């Protein structure tokens, strides 16, 4: 009532009396804190007073300091104060006061006090129910949606808690188990009248901050999520995967950001860009594109570094909530869609998400428009569009998918259509050496050695190579040497990489006739590729370059059926079975005719060669001059043939050496 007099009296007492023992001091300040609080909220009334105008913070501050000091001097002092706190559930009283918030600002004061305690005590007994229940009750008060203004303090509390749990992971079970959260919260709920009592676990509470406009809060939120998903406790991992909203929230946020992207994108700028959520994000200023790519980067980090079980759950949830919804309506699918899909696919490389996307690509969709079609089928269909950029993005995506060499995807796209050998004409007997090969193949296939194969190293190799080289008429050759030797080193390296990946696929070593004879169907993908090759004289040279990349890759696969079907032009094929060799023949004939109409075509070819060697497909995409395109295409095809020969050569020698060794 008379503050000034009290101050004087107190200081007089302090001067005369010796320092008060810590425990008594502690009790004194705790009681003062309570009395003060109760006086301001007489009869349980909500006070209009701001806490700064009262003595409540001063007393609580000292209570907190004594506890911290006692902990730091544990060797010399007793821990009487902390014992008293735990025994009498003082923290829980604080939690109740915070929940009721009858004095303006007391909630955040208590939150800060507990933050200081958990971050400064050497070994806070988090597992003790008096401590843990309080923390759990405070977590429930930290929902960002409810108390937006105090985001900074709230997330700081949550962040300190996560850091502490990270250092004492055995205690994390207290915050991530049904037993602990349910039972104690029921008690807490019963003891408060609050009807709006949330039941949030620590992680779900943190997840409410992902839409924050405050960069610091955003970083802390993300850091908390990363910490929690790395905890190494089986029960906690299970709880996080099954009971929290982690996976669905991250996936839905990803979808929301995806939907917010502009419909047209600057592909040139975005092609090579790799945004990092830590360095490139600013919650206040970032635009939609940055937000999306940063979030992608963040999700990939969780999938890569988080506990495997959590990664798998997150991937599965992304499949259901993001990928499966990509093709919900056909109007949505645009050029940028496919471009983004490719960016996501690349970002997911070497993570479990890669497997998820591959699985999704070959799974039938369950929606009204694309019922029973797979994303691969849809993309193949879409590639028939006349929009060059769209085609460019689709083919680019396919190139990435093929290079990823997922066994099931390769099988789904191509191999399942050709591994029955239905393209082969059995009635026509070939040359003597072909017959000999067929006999030998049967013998070799019994040996089951992946490295030995007569199919990959046929006796007629010289004829096959010569036919391919002869495809390019002499006056169409931009390089007079017309040799495939320049390509051998590159092809060899590529083939070794491919072999590394494919050895475990357990593919057959020889192409043999199957018992069943059916009509041949090359499948939608090869059909699309063949169609596009046929169309080379009339289309963009970026597409031709992409086709070249796809063909070279497919040829290099050590799969006997694919190998002989694509590369062995001496193989007798059934009627109406499309043959790559014949298609190339046709296309080159047509190109030849066109080129000869230009007076100085020799010079043009040499110029085109220079252009091609220094160009990427994205640069070629912009070329609109018909004449330039024709010459470009001719040079690309010339190189394709030489590279195919190099592939044949490398595969032959690799396999033949193995054949001779047995």
């Amino acid at each position: 009532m008379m503050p000034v007099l009290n101050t004087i009296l107190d200081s007089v007492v302090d001067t005369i009396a010796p320092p008060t023992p810590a425990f008594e001091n502690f009790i004194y300040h705790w009681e003062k804190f309570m009395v003060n609080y109760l006086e301001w909220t007489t009869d349980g009334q909500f006070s209009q007073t701001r806490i700064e105008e009262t003595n409540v913070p001063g007393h609580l501050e000292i209570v907190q300091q004594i506890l911290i000091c006692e902990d730091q001097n544990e060797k010399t002092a007793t821990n009487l104060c902390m014992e008293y706190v735990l025994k009498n559930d003082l923290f829980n009283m604080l939690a109740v006061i915070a929940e009721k918030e009858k004095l303006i600002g007391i909630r955040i004061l208590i939150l800060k006090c507990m933050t200081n305690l958990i971050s400064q005590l050497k070994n806070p007994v988090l597992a003790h129910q008096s401590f843990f229940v309080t923390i759990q009750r405070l977590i429930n008060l930290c929902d960002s949606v409810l108390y937006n203004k105090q985001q900074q303090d709230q997330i700081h509390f949550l962040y300190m808690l996560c850091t502490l749990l990270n250092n004492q992971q055995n205690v994390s079970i207290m915050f991530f188990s049904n037993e602990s959260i349910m039972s104690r919260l029921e008690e807490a709920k019963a003891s408060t009248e609050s009807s709006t009592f949330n039941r949030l676990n620590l992680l779900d509470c943190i997840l409410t901050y992902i839409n924050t406009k405050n960069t610091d809060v955003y970083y802390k939120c993300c850091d908390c999520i990363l910490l929690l998903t790395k905890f190494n406790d089986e029960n906690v991992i299970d709880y996080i995967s099954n009971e929290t909203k982690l996976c669905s929230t991250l996936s839905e946020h990803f979808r929301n950001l995806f939907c917010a992207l502009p419909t047209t994108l600057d592909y040139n700028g975005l092609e090579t860009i790799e945004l990092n959520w830590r360095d490139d994000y600013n919650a206040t200023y970032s635009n939609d594109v940055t937000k999306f790519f940063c979030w992608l980067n963040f999700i990939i980090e969780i999938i890569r570094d988080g506990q495997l079980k959590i990664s798998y759950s997150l991937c599965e949830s992304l499949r259901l909530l993001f990928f499966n919804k990509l093709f919900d309506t056909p109007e949505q699918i645009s050029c940028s869609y496919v471009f983004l899909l490719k960016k996501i696919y690349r970002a997911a490389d070497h993570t479990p998400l890669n497997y998820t996307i591959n699985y999704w690509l070959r799974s039938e969709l369950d929606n009204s428009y694309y019922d029973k079609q797979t994303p691969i089928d849809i993309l193949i269909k879409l590639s028939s569009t006349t929009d060059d950029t769209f085609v460019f993005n689709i083919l680019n995506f396919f190139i990435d998918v093929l290079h990823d060499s997922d066994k099931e995807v390769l099988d789904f796209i191509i191999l399942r259509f050709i591994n029955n050998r239905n393209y082969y004409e059995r009635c026509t007997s070939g040359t003597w050496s072909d017959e000999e090969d067929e006999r030998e193949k049967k013998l070799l296939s019994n040996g089951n050695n992946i490295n030995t194969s007569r199919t990959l190293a046929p006796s007629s190799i010289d004829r096959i190579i010569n036919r391919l080289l002869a495809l390019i008429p002499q006056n169409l050759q931009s390089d007079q040497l017309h040799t495939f030797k320049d390509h051998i080193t590159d092809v060899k390296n590529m083939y070794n990489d491919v072999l590394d990946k494919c050895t475990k696929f357990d593919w057959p070593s020889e192409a043999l006739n199957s018992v069943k004879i059916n009509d041949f169907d090359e499948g939608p993908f090869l059909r699309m590729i063949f169609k596009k090759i046929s169309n080379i004289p009339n289309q963009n040279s970026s597409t031709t370059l992409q086709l070249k990349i796809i063909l070279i890759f497919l040829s290099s696969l050590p799969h006997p059926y694919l190998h002989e079907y694509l590369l062995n032009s001496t193989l007798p094929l059934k009627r109406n079975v499309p043959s790559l060799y014949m298609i190339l023949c046709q296309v080159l004939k047509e190109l030849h005719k066109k080129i000869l109409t230009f007076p100085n075509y020799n010079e043009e070819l040499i110029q085109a060669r220079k252009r091609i060697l220094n160009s990427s497909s994205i640069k070629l995409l912009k070329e609109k001059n018909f004449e330039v395109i024709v010459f470009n295409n001719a040079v690309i095809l010339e190189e394709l043939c030489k590279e195919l020969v190099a592939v044949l050569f490398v595969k032959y020698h690799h396999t033949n050496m193995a054949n001779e060794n047995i």
Partner: protein
Amino acid sequence: MSYAYLFKYIIIGDTGVGKSCLLLQFTDKRFQPVHDLTIGVEFGARLVSIETKPIKLQIWDTAGQEAFRSITRSYYRGAAGALLVYDITRRDTFNHLTTWLEDARQHSNSNMVIMLIGNKSDLEAKREVKKEEGEAFAREHGLVFMETSAKTSDNVEEAFINTAKEIYEKIQEGVFDINNEANGIKIGPQHSTGNSSIPGGNNRSNGNGCC
């Protein structure tokens, strides 16, 4: 409040064997027939007298459930005594003793005194584990053994105090290094003035206002 030594105890054993009830009986001298499952750890303290010396027992009561095992493990460190409890009416709780003992030996200091306790001795009619079996197990593993009843308080006092006596004897024999707190023993404060470095000793002036 003043004491000569402080001993840290830990109570371990399967869920539902009566660990929390033993503690409650010892610290508050009461029995609660329906007791919630312990989540994490709980805590109790009492002053006892061994050979006229006041000794404070600080007892950590742990959760028996498997999910909280990793928390329990972290409390072995720095414990001078452990009460390993089973329920004489439930054979499985006796069968699990070996696992508990392995855990205790692995995570505690080698001198920790372990008292084996067969609890619920008041439920003679439902007994599944004979007293002799408990004795044999204790003998085999070098433990002290007692049957108790947290309900009737039979032997509860003795269980805690005998463990303290054993620890006290070890101190007298010099087995325990009392200066190493990892052993779960602390020497009491010479005088009860606490620590002068604690802030607030002269801070009462902060508490002015409406008092």
